[in-house]
């Protein structure tokens, strides 16, 4: 307690210097916190946008379907599996999908299309597909009055084939039994834009896809939405344990969208480098202060050693002073940062030109108030200051009483 008192009083002794150093620490905290807050908020927004767009947070496939897709790598008894997944506590949406590349014909024009068979209601609960319709109506799962199955077509295919709502489109692909699959379907909706993820997609109900591809109750993919994208890994592990089926690969979005995830991580690393530079600037100021303070008090350290203070205790004294100052600096920084981060969390910063992340437009940078954005900068400031204080601390601890005191 007395040591802490000494630390406080020594800081108050050179009040102006301590305030200036504390302010530089507070400013460093503020910059680091704001930088992390905007970055984390943006990442969170982008990841949420990306995963809710089509990927979901966890996906289930048969074996190595993700790396080597094949129509015959099917998840069997899908409805039973989906029912089991529905009951998992952290799962909020489960959407089984049938996937098959096909050729789409209209008149004398053809185009490659990714056919995706979905359960319309389940897909609506899992991704934002239903929100991306530019024309027409979302799938109901029922054929039209003439008995034709309805499809939703991506804008890329619409542009290539000059499609309109109500047009009849012929699909040809490989069926599950190795036979040729073909069907005539009616365009009921147009999805996305010419640049969006689903530009080459054709969505139909799972029943229609089963008929088209002879799937017999199987699917190629099950997309799962959890309460929070951050829970993806533990939920994937939990589901793996629950299902304990070695034939199934259950992967979080970080594995499913590996390229996207790695680019996010690289971007994050760049941001950490910026935070590191901020800390470097802070550390130069702190080093200057601590060095000056210890040099001025050389005689005092000599006295302390003379009367029996161990070098280690003097070292801790310097460290305590620095950590106390850094803690107050961080506290002041947090008081400044909290309302600023809060404002940007609520209002965000509108980008003049929206940027595209993985085919998804991103138009607003939003901040985040979290452990990473509020506590991490404080830890960084305190740890950086403590590290910077090591050298002056060692110097103070090594003071020779006779030399430091001059006489005696």
């Amino acid at each position, binding site marked *: 307690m007395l040591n802490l008192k000494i630390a406080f009083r020594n800081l108050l002794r050179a009040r102006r210097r301590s305030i200036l150093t504390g302010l530089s620490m507070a400013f460093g905290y503020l910059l680091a916190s704001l930088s992390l807050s905007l970055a984390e908020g943006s990442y969170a927004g982008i990841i949420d946008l990306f995963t809710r767009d089509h990927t979901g947070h966890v996906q289930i496939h048969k074996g190595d379907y993700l790396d080597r897709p094949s129509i015959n790598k099917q998840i069997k008894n899908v409805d039973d599996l989906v029912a089991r997944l529905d009951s998992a506590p952290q799962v909020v949406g489960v959407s089984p999908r049938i996937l098959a590349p096909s050729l789409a014909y209209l008149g004398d024009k053809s185009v490659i299309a990714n056919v995706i068979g979905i359960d319309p209601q389940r897909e609506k609960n899992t991704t934002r597909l239903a929100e991306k319709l530019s024309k027409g109506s979302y799938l109901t799962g029922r054929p039209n009055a003439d008995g034709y199955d309805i499809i939703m077509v991506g804008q890329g295919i619409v542009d290539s084939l000059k499609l309109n709502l109500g047009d009849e489109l012929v699909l040809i692909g490989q069926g599950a039994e190795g036979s040729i699959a073909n069907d005539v379907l009616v365009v009921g909706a147009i999805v996305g834009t010419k640049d969006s993820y689903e530009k080459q997609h054709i969505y139909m109900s799972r029943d229609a896809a089963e008929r088209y591809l002879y799937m017999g109750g199987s699917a190629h993919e099950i997309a799962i939405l959890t309460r929070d994208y951050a829970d993806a890994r533990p939920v994937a592990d939990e589901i793996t344990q629950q299902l304990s089926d070695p034939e199934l690969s259950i992967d979080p979005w970080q594995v499913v969208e590996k390229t996207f995830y790695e680019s996010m991580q690289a971007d994050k690393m760049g941001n950490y480098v910026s935070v590191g530079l901020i800390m470097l600037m802070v550390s130069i100021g702190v080093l200057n202060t601590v060095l000056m303070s210890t040099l001025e008090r050389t005689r005092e350290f000599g006295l*302390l050693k003379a*009367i029996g203070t*161990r070098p280690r205790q003097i070292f801790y004294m310097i460290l305590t002073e620095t950590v106390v100052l850094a803690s107050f600096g961080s506290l002041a920084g947090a008081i400044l940062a909290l309302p600023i981060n809060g404002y940007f969390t609520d209002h965000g910063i509108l980008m003049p030109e929206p940027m595209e992340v993985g085919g998804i437009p991103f138009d607003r940078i939003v901040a985040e108030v979290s452990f990473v954005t509020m506590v991490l900068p404080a830890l960084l400031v305190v740890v950086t200051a403590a590290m910077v204080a090591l050298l002056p601390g060692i110097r103070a601890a090594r003071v020779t009483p006779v030399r430091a005191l001059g006489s005696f």
Partner: protein
Amino acid sequence: MTVIIKTDKLSRHYGKGNVMVKALDGVDLEIDSGEFTAIVGPSGSGKTTLLQLIGGLDKPTSGDVYLKGTKVSAMAPGALSDFRRDHIGFIFQAFNLIPVLTAQENVEYIMLLQNRPKAERHEKAMSILESVGLKDMASRRPAEMSGGQQQRVAVARALASEPDIILADEPTANLDSKTGADLIDLMKEFNEKSGVTFVFSTHDTKIMERAKRLVRLVDGRISEDIRQ
């Protein structure tokens, strides 16, 4: 009486070759427990060097220092720190109190180093401050006290760890003659009451008269050793 301080051919030389200064040159000295000894001599005679070596603040060039039979000149730095803390009290010419601590906290600090309980530290600090006549100034910091008061706090601090020996280097040098004499009387009173051994350096003749033993140094050697 038992010998509490013993120096054996103690020498301390600074520099080398032609510029070598022999601050102490083969000093043999024995001080008994409970003595009130003044080390006297002109400036540069080696008084401070002798006290520094006895106090384990410096290493001799040759020879040894024994305190209570322990060879302090050969002790490792950590052990020496602990030895100083528990067995030696220091009073400095320039008072050297910790400026950010009050009088009471300055006295308590050394007991904190000895890991004594807070209540005991507090009680003892107040009791010693009372005995040096500074109970009312316990909450004052050094900058709020006169030189004489600061030096009395330094005496209190030196006594707080219950040392066997108190070493004082020119304790009255920065005080006026009356305050200086009062301080020496205070030290003498503690020496007589508690039996703690005092060794102090001075070149003030009025102060010397109050010592029970005078050890005179000239050019780093003992030229005279008088018990008064």
